[in-house]
């Protein structure tokens, strides 16, 4: 790879180069390069081609979301801009401080303090090295927050695995068993977050057969930004300081690797373990540099390493850069310039500053025992020049690098499938409820949650487990000593619904993320989208992606909740097939006073219980059907306009102080939500199904287990006040809290079920 590479070859030759160098560049892209080098009248160097491959990779520039799609006879151009980002631009909320631009989305919080939030995925590395893959996933997203001058205050993680009892004999050679991946992914997440001293406050664990061999590891970090210290001003003459861990051969080709299916020979070089103590030191130094006002811009080193970061910084500043690769501290002697340039070694940051501040910044890093060197200087013009001990090893025009936009053209066609409602009844609702509580997606995740520190920093006001260890809807943090304001973090995800229609899956995920936030007292909600999908070059996968994106637009707009950041991980396929389309929506809300926060556990005997929202014939993709071996057809649909009104009213009710407990209805419907509030509060409930607001005539199992969206179970000690606050929305009083520690549900004066809460809790706790 050292010598010049001539691109003056035919199409086959171009694709041979792309393949042999693992560039993952398409023919159109290779042809554009051929033209570029032809005009220059020279051959390419290896390091230059690597740079194009990184910058134009799916991971860095999201070809699919920014390209063109043939969908229902029309061409959709730039899916991101016309759906997700459009919500944000249409709403144009003044509290959105920085969206879709920097490493993380940033919204206002309290005075000069803003909140940054970013969620990333680390799926392929976690399939290969579950501990290291998950740990470095956490480390990576923490650096995204440091990369907006943010101080990390909380982590979230949402994980998807194959069934833990998946038969070993069905597992293809070399693929790790879901139970192995589960054990080490959760260990890796705990290890990194705990060691960094960042609490893991919110998450979810989901199981589906399509995740065998392709787990999903979503890692999120929330941080505090000082708006007056948020600097991204680069000018010619400024320099770039590389700080943190040494650079090694690890992770080379990780980015281009995101665009190909897993295969064994590429494994070794992408394996990384991560060192949270190194990152903890880097983090302290970065925050100290911020507070001293020393840096002029900052970015993390993620996918593509220096090759992505330095170019991006130069482009941001509208200038060129001279890079001195020999100055980079190395882990492995004898590394080639292109290896240094593209290494994805962890725990590294790039800080830009004026020359006069270099000494001071190096001093701060030295105080924290972090290695730091000046690696590059911003220059006049638009030339990115790569040097290694006085030899120029590469030279690239920055406008060509970032300005070349070769649109991919994908085709979206719906898969041919038909759905029908099964004829299943609940002969024994109590037994069905106990079985659903023990289903892995519903069952208690306490065994994992307790291995994550969710208390460090002493800011976690509502924790992942609430009351006597019930599943909380959202986490609430109080990050400032001087203010009662709270940060509210929640998520929503429904892969099961996506098997019927990705549009409604996305709509429900948004509704769920928002209602979880609303349930504890959150408001002024911002959203993050993280798509994990199969190969978008396959028309059926692409169709689902378009459908889901359209739902993001329609539903988020109706809720007036802007997207502030997002990421996609495509090509999640193994020899067993694609993963089921999976969209994680994360929600970031605020509350003016954490003393009004509401937890989900029942509080005291005699509280009235209200259900908010209508129940419909919507068992499609439900856990009740799943239990009965069916998928169904009637997937839950979101009526966002009426949901928005009822959410707003519920917020008013919470602010008035009359809401003692509030829990959202999700997987397993009313029956599961009611059970959870009971054992979390150590109290019983008496509910009457006849009083539930509904659409049409519904059977008992539909009233119990329907997963209709936008619903809550609210406990109040002041029914009159609650009814007044909820005004004309759909809600109804359906029962009250009892002290006999039983969940008793009736219909037409007959008992539907009557179970001791200890029995419910045991089933829920022993499911995993």
């Amino acid at each position, binding site marked *: 790879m050292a010598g010049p590479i001539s691109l003056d070859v035919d199409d086959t030759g171009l694709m041979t180069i792309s393949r042999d160098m693992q560039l993952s560049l398409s023919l159109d892209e290779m042809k554009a390069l051929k033209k570029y080098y032809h005009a220059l009248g020279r051959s390419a160097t290896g390091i230059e081609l690597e740079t194009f491959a990184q910058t134009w990779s799916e991971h860095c520039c999201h070809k699919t979301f920014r390209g063109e799609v043939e969908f229902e006879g029309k061409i959709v151009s730039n899916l991101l801009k016309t759906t997700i980002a459009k919500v944000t631009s249409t709403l144009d909320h003044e509290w959105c401080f920085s969206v879709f631009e920097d490493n993380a989305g940033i919204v206002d919080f309290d005075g000069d303090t803003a909140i940054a939030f970013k969620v990333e995925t680390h799926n392929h590395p976690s399939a290969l090295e579950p501990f290291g893959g998950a740990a470095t996933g956490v480390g990576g997203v923490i650096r995204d927050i440091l990369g907006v001058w943010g101080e990390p205050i909380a982590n979230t993680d949402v994980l998807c695995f194959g069934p833990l009892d998946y038969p070993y004999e069905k597992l293809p050679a070399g693929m790790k068993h879901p139970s192995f991946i589960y054990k080490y992914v959760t260990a890796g997440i*705990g290890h990194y977050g*705990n*060691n*960094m*001293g960042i609490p893991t406050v919110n998450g979810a664990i989901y199981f589906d057969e399509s995740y065998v061999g392709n787990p999903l590891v979503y890692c999120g970090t929330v941080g505090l930004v000082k708006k007056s210290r948020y600097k991204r001003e680069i000018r010619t003459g400024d320099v770039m300081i590389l700080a943190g861990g040494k650079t090694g051969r690890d992770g080379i080709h990780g980015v281009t690797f995101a665009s190909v299916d897993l295969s064994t020979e590429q494994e070794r070089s992408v394996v990384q373990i991560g*060192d*949270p*103590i190194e990152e*903890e*030191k880097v983090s302290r130094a970065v925050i100290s540099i911020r507070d001293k006002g020393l840096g002029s811009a900052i970015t993390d080193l993620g996918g593509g390493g220096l090759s992505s970061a330095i170019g991006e910084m130069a482009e941001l500043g509208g200038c060129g850069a001279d890079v001195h690769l020999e100055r980079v501290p190395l882990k492995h002697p004898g590394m080639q310039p292109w290896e240094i340039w593209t290494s994805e070694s962890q725990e590294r940051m790039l800080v830009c500053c004026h020359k006069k501040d270099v000494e001071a910044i190096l001093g701060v890093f030295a*105080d*924290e*025992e972090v290695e730091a060197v000046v690696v590059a200087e911003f220059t006049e013009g638009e030339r990115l020049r790569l040097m290694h001990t006085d030899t120029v090893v590469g030279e690239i025009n920055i406008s060509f690098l970032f300005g070349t936009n070769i649109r991919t053209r994908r085709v979206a066609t719906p898969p041919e499938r038909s759905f029908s409602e099964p004829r299943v009844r609940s002969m024994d609702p109590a037994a069905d409820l106990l079985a659903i509580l023990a289903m892995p997606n519903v069952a208690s995740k306490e065994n994992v*949650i*307790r*291995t*994550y*520190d*969710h*208390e*460090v*920093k*002493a*800011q*976690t*006001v*509502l*924790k992942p*487990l*609430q*009351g006597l260890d019930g599943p909380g809807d959202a986490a609430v943090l*109080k990050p400032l*000593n001087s203010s009662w304001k709270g940060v509210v973090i929640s998520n929503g995800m429904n892969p099961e619904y996506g098997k019927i229609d990705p549009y409604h899956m996305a709509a429900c995920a948004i509704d769920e993320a928002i209602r979880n936030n609303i349930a504890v007292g959150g408001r002024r909600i911002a959203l993050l989208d993280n798509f994990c999908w199969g190969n978008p070059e396959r028309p059926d996968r692409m169709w689902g992606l378009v459908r889901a994106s359209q739902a993001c637009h329609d539903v988020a707009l109706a809720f007036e909740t802007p997207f502030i950041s997002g990421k996609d991980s495509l090509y999640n396929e193994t020899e067993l097939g694609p993963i089921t389309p999976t969209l994680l929506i994360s929600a970031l809300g605020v509350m003016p006073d*954490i*003393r009004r*926060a*509401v*937890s989900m*556990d029942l*509080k*005291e005997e005699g509280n009235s219980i209200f259900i908010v929202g209508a129940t419909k014939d919507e068992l499609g993709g439900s856990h009740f059907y799943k239990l009965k071996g069916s998928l169904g057809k009637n997937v839950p649909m979101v009526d966002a306009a009426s949901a928005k009104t009822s959410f707003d009213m519920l917020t008013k009710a919470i602010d008035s102080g009359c809401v003692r407990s509030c829990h959202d209805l999700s997987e397993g419907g009313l029956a599961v939500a009611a059970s959870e509030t009971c054992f979390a509060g150590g109290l019983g409930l008496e509910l009457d199904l006849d009083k539930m607001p509904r659409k049409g005539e519904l059977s008992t199992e539909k009233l119990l287990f329907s997963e209709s969206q936008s619903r809550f179970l609210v406990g109040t000690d002041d029914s009159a006040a609650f009814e007044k606050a909820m005004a004309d929305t759909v809600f109804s009083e359906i029962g009250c809290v009892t002290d006999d520690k039983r969940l008793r549900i009736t219909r037409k004066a007959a008992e539907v079920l009557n179970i001791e809460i200890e029995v419910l809790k045991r089933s829920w706790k022993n499911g995993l």
Partner: protein
Amino acid sequence: MAYKVCIIRAPGTNCDRETAMCVESQGLEAEVVHVKRLMEGEIRFSDYDGLIIPGGFSFGDHVRAGALLGKILKERFGDELAQFSSDGKPILGICNGFQVLVECGLLPGNTAQSALTTNLSSRFECRWVDLSVETSRCIFTDGLSGSIRLPVAHGEGRFLVTAGELKELTNTGQVVFKYAQKNGGSAGGSYPENPNGSIDDIAGICNKEGNVFGLMPHPERAFYRFLHPRWTKSDESESFGDGYKIFNNMAEYIMR
């Protein structure tokens, strides 16, 4: 002149900020000091009126939890710290800090050998526990009695000593906190009330004089009532939590 408390940190220490906040709320000056600055002779322990070793994973807890920082303190600053302690100045070790105090020999502070080793569950655990307040000479728990509730978050908190030494610790009033049942009764080694399998349910001990105190639970994470896992059930969201008294006692002792 304000009284100064040194909060010592090493790479991987991560509870120093909230601990400093608790100290400062009591009218003391808290200075977070990197152990490197002590090693370079820039500052000395004798400049301070109290010392706290906060929680975290000092030096990544490699080898053993708290081992490296403990050995540095013992081998480089053994005499200074012995003097600090015998001057009657208060020393508090929380979680990783407790492990450090045991590794450097300041606790139990006699010939007894003790250790904080891997939890019986062999995993990191984050949960709130009930603690019974034992009769001891500990200056940090003055005025506390009955039982209190604090969170633990550790993987290596299982306190071990020999039977003979356990008896001595008990007789000399060095056992400060024990893991307990909700009603205050003895945990009797049962999980999860005793979250790590500590001998005799021991959660915190002090030296014979009562001015050096180490505990696995985190009082700084229970400084305010709104950090308690069940605060939403009551109306006391503005008052202090069970961890407050420990910092309050430290301040009163220093300013006495």
